[in-house]
């Protein structure tokens, strides 16, 4: 039997090595629970299929963009998918906290920032898969991407950035409340923010004034419009600037607060 290493002689691992180890675990968990990817993939696509057809007559409303409703609606699955990423990131982290695995990690030299960054690694993988699938299904169903192949790549980047920001939100909820139930409890609220936006109609066609106000102040509207502009308009600098701007703001805020929550949760003397 080989000699045990002397505990105090081990040098603390490099930050990237820590992030890599945690990220590897996160990705492994995602890959090994492929079944859990099915619902988040299917649900937005089912809604897209139904709404794309059921609201087809909406294009007859005066002022509606000169595209099919399906083209108009394709942006929404990317946001709904991001919500699912938020919930799965949060419930995974909450499970670690509830099971005590978090304490196990706390007993190692693992930095809180590395733990957070690594956990979000799996979320990024899921977001990539989802985004590619949504785009592929949309194109296969006849949606044209007005901004071309380059725009499709930008769309994927924006979608993944949005999902990353929402994953940070999921992590924040898990670290703040420590239970999967609390994370799941926020899901309906997140879902509702998608509805109270320009997800179903362009903002200028929303007739009810309070709804129009809410949709105008709802950052989700700009995330959707950023993605939508690449699909139905082409290169709309303002829409893209707002979309990327709000996505980056979401990332900064959620990851910032999640970092603070991690410090409070990873209590070590």
């Amino acid at each position, binding site marked *: *039997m*080989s000699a*045990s*290493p*002397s*505990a*105090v002689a*081990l*040098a*603390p*691992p490099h930050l990237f*090595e*820590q992030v890599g*180890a945690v990220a*590897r*675990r996160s990705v*492994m*968990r995602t890959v*090994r*629970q492929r079944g859990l990817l099915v619902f988040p993939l299917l649900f937005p696509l089912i809604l897209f299929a139904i709404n794309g057809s059921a609201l087809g007559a909406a294009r007859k409303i005066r002022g509606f963009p000169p595209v099919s409703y399906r083209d108009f609606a394709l942006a929404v699955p990317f946001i709904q998918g991001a919500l699912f990423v938020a919930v799965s990131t949060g419930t995974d982290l909450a499970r*670690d906290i509830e*099971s*005590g*695995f978090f*304490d*196990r*990690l*706390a*007993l*190692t*030299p*693992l930095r809180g920032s590395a733990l957070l960054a690594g956990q979000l690694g799996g979320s990024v993988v899921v977001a990539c898969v989802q985004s590619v699938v949504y785009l592929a299904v949309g194109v296969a169903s006849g949606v044209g991407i007005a901004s071309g192949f380059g725009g499709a790549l930008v769309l994927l980047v924006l979608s993944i950035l949005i999902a990353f920001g929402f994953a940070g939100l999921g992590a924040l909820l898990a670290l703040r409340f420590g239970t999967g139930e609390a994370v799941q409890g926020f899901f309906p609220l997140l879902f509702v923010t998608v509805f109270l936006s320009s997800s179903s109609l362009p903002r200028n066609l929303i007739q009810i004034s309070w709804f129009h106000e809410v949709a105008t102040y709802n950052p989700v509207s700009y995330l959707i419009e950023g993605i939508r502009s690449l699909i139905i308009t082409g290169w709309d600098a303002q829409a893209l600037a707002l979309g990327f701007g709000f996505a980056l703001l979401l990332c900064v805020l959620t990851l910032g607060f999640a970092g603070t929550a991690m410090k409070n949760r990873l*209590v*070590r*003397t």
Partner: protein
Amino acid sequence: MNSSSPAIEVEQLVREFRKGPRAVDGIDLAVSPGEIYGFLGPNGAGKSTTVLMLTTLLPPTSGRARVGGYDILRQGSQVRASIGAALQEAALDAILTGREHLMLQATLQGMPKADRTRRAQNLLERVGLTEAADRRVGGYSGGMKRRLDLALALVHGPRILFLDEPTTGLDLQSRSALWEEVARLAKEEGMTVFLTTQYLEEADALADRVGIIDHGKIVAEGTPTQLKEEIGSPTVEVVPADAGAGDALAERLASFGQLARNGRGAVTVQLPGGESQLAEVVRVLDQAHLKVASLQLHQPSLDDVFLAKTGRKLEGAGEDQDERQP
């Protein structure tokens, strides 16, 4: 830490939670290097809270402690590098395999890449999990999970091991196997073990010294033998074959020591001279031609120690409390 200084030193350690009484109320203890220290108490006594503080996962409200020679408040990272801990929950990821757990732990502990695989294999052999190493932990039995938990605590070769109720919920076989490994770690590798338990026989079987904690305070401390001798002598319980011979039996046995009788006609008498007096008891009964249905010798247990110190029996004394910070 030199060989003469304690491996674990605790001085007036206190932990208060926002709502409720003190979970740990000013405890003092010292554990020598290579010793197995059993921390015995009912549910809610403060055992796990003490472990969480000593493993730096929960800051104390007041008091001091040094683990492995390092202050738990000021030198937390050195403490963590010196200790291994298997906490109350096995805390494993059901999706990962046993080997993956060990590799992850080794990476996070900063073990060089070249050593990780060998170390993981080594530990898997040691805890008897080589066959199950590449199976997901979700399919492990309770005993296997506990063994993996122990292996994970040993990855970085700590000198001090904290085990928080390591055999709760395990079957007898798994429990014995774990006891054997813990005893071997202490005896052959000189590991200091701080073991919390609510099982009397576990403390009795494993611990060199036992600290009994109740309501956050240490109520008794010593070797199991010392503690038991402190509270009293063994007793012998005699049940007469003839139910009407109870009085005669009591008369004969009264000379030995304090008597007690129960409704079943049994007579219990203390043996201040120890179990060696048992032969004398038998002789007296034989000389008096008193036939007995049964004769049982009772040694004082740690439960009796707990009863003497707290007025309650240890088994069934615990309230169901979560000892973690709310």
